[in-house]
């Protein structure tokens, strides 16, 4: 079974993921901080990890950077609003060759399911 990890300090977002993927054939686990998410990613294999860009403490890019040190292959989506002030940080991360994709926040359940299904079938 494909496993997803959601790292977000917002409990409403974590709950919405749980509801979206309930009975979908995906196993979903959540973490409320970057540190917790990193430990979970070290301990278990995930097919996709979603990380919120803006989190207290360790932010999304720091979390991404840490996970990439021990896992180069997992698909990682960064949750963000499409505002230049946020995307500038992500441009810097991309320039450092950190591998990630981005997803707009908020996202509807149907869009999220389609995204995950397509990402896992990805062939380019």
């Amino acid at each position, binding site marked *: 079974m494909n496993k997803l990890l959601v790292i977000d300090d917002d409990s409403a977002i974590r709950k919405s993921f749980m509801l979206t993927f309930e009975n979908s054939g995906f196993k979903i686990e959540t973490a409320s901080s970057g540190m917790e998410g990193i430990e979970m990613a070290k301990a278990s294999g995930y097919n996709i990890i979603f990380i919120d860009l803006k989190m207290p403490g360790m932010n999304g890019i720091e979390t991404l950077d840490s996970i990439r040190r021990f896992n180069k292959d997992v698909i990682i*989506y960064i949750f963000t609003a*499409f*505002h*230049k002030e946020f*995307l500038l940080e*992500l*441009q810097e991360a*991309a*320039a450092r*060759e950190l*591998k*990630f*994709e*981005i*997803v*707009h926040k908020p*996202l509807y359940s149907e*869009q999220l399911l*389609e*995204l*995950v*299904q*397509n*990402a*896992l*079938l*990805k*062939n*380019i």
Partner: protein
Amino acid sequence: MNDDHNAILFRLYIIKQAPSASETILKLKSFLDSNFKNSYTLDVIDILAYPEKAIMDNIMASPTLIKVKPHPQKRVVGGIHFSRLLADLNLSNYVVN
């Protein structure tokens, strides 16, 4: 076959600095060349550099490929699967043999 081949327009929203971006673009261009010859246009847009364009096109995630024309507009989000791309974008009747 449809006569309006010159009107095939694609937009690819991608993170251009991503490690795999160049390969993605090359593979997509190769696929489009082999199916549509010179009768298409592909605009590649870096989401991180042009977020306003992404917002105008209601982009939800990277990568997203949109068939802008011919209508109706179609899109694939999160992964491009060549084996089913023509069907996903409703373009099977536009292939140039």
